[in-house]
């Protein structure tokens, strides 16, 4: 089922350089994607609950979540999202530098929908972003509530 509107993606990352890189790659791919940014875990939950200053933001179709962040890290955000009956249907892709077995196991244990390790160089990173975009935009069927939200 093809999405009629842009895919709303929330990127949760504390590193502005990483966010910028993600933004640049999505821009180069020219997909039908709208990126939103939260700079840490608390910021992300404020966004999802549409708290100030996020009263007007759309409900994201997909969350790209970093694990290691100050204040509230990705694991806590994941736990909060999956505990929340309104939010748990939003697919969460853990996108992190860590390839540690412990982090992978823990993330899936917290009901992450996907776990991706950030590649070390740009061409590979572009491929990863491209595949995320293609899969969630063109391949996967998203829940109705997400489509309507």
């Amino acid at each position, binding site marked *: 089922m093809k999405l009629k509107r842009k895919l709303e993606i929330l990127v949760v990352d504390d590193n502005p350089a*990483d966010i*910028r*890189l993600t933004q*640049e790659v999505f821009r180069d791919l020219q997909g039908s994607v709208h990126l939103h940014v939260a700079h840490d875990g608390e910021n992300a939950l404020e966004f999802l609950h549409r708290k100030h200053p996020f009263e007007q933001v759309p409900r994201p179709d997909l969350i790209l979540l970093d694990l290691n962040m*100050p204040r509230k890290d990705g694991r806590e955000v994941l736990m909060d999202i999956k505990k929340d009956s309104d939010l748990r249907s939003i697919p969460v892709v853990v996108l992190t*530098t860590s390839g*540690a077995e412990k982090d992978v196991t823990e993330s899936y244990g917290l009901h992450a929908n996907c776990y991706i390790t*950030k*590649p070390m160089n740009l061409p590979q990173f572009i491929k990863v972003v491209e595949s995320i975009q293609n899969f969630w935009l063109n391949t996967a069927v998203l829940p109705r509530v997400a489509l309507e939200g």
Partner: protein
Amino acid sequence: MDKHRSSHETCAPPEERPDLSDVDGAARSTTIAREKDGGSLRARLEESRTSIANLEASLSAAGAGDWQWNLESNQLVLGDSWLSVFGYLREAIGSGIDLLNELTHPEDRSRVGALRTQFLDGANDLLACELRIRSGAGHYLWVLESARVVERSEQGRPLRVVGLHQDITRRRETEKSLRDTGSTFRQLADRVREVFWICTADGKRTLYVSPAYEEIWGGSRQSLYENSEDWPLMVHPEDRDRVVEAAKSFVHGASPSFHEEYRIVRPDGTIRWVRVRGFPVIDELGKTVRTAGIAEDITEARTQAQNLCRLNDELETRVRERTTELERSNKALEEFAYIASHDLQEPLRMVTSYVQLLEQRCGTRLDQDGLDFMRFIVDGAQRMKALINDLLAYSRMEISVDQFEEVDVQAALKRVLGNLSVAIEESNAEITSDPLPVVSGIELELIQLLQNLIGNAIKYRREKPRIHVSATHAGGEWWFSVKDNGIGIDPQHFDRIFRIFQRLRKHGEVSGTGIGLAICKKIVERHGGRIWVDSKPDDGSVFLFTLPRDEIREPSRATAAAEGVS
């Protein structure tokens, strides 16, 4: 007739027996005179001879031999039984009055000779003594010599004496053996360190207690003999009921033996542990006639066992402590490994990615984006450098083996202020302190500790930083505090700020690697102290840490002049 005679022989009344039966003292000296009466002298004589022969055989079988002394004729008449018991032939042995003396063991001669003389002199009617008589085979037999005067002259001088030698060699040997055994046991009991004791069957009276009792109990044996029933008074009050109960149960036969370990309080007040065992002494009929047993001092063994227990406990505690320490250390190492292998890659990845992006987008021409990307590259490289430096500092502490020395914290603070002079000048910080003590520690680490805490206080400021360092002592510890007027910390983050790579601030807000407080924590823990923080957001923070105060050292400086740098 035969039947009658035989019956007559065995049933003959004592007064009709031949004179030799006088050995038991039942007959009288008038018997021989009586023989003249009666019917047929020949028949009577025959009868007597038979009786004598029978008697001699009986005596011989019982190991006894009879003899007579005729003092008028100076003759010793030895009976058949005597010759049989001592193994002599009548023809080979003389009959002189001195014979008896000659046969007596030389060692016994004077003693027995005196007794015999006394006897003949009329001092004693009966002679009874033990002596050795030489046998025909040449060895000596122990005998009991019994003799009685059976005929006296009108003046009362003994004329005839009858006597018996009873072989008592076997009895003497048994007695000697018993004496030897008794003596052996007695000497053993008197000399060993353990106490031997013998009581009456009811346990109420002490019949014997060996000298070791005085050594262990510290009281005299005499008092125990005299006040046997007071023994529980020396038992430690906490053990008394139990021991008295066990003793009762034992003497009443409810328990087959007594075996108790308990404390005694000696007259000088010292306490000893004793182990007392007792058992019943039973006669042939199975009746308890005595109670007896052993007591020993087990204080040393008890103490050693207790020491061993305590040492064991201490060792276990130390192993537990060491294990906890190792676990903590391992956990830190694990965290370090995680960081080194993953988090360090992030800035490196940035550098790599942006350089590639720069090439792809801008080629050789750099526009504003290009400049931005360049900045990120530089920033990433710098962060990487800072991380590596801090991680090195952290890991270096892990392997440091520096010895503790006296560190003047006041002087350490002075150096910290020198190291931070640029930041202090830039922020216009005002740093004051109370007099600070001399502590035992590693100087460079304590300098780093203060530098990280004061550096943070300057870094996380709201306005002109005002920082105060102070120290007080409580319960064998120094309590240090570094108080600031900065942005403060939410209490929910108090724990995580001391964990490695935990930052509360976003990138760009404040520069930092998230290792500084982890290093502080490590330094304080290595010095045997604790570190924690007290703070409210927007209300400043107080970082507190403790250091052990092994040697009481007050700050020697009377001048409490605040150290101000601005």
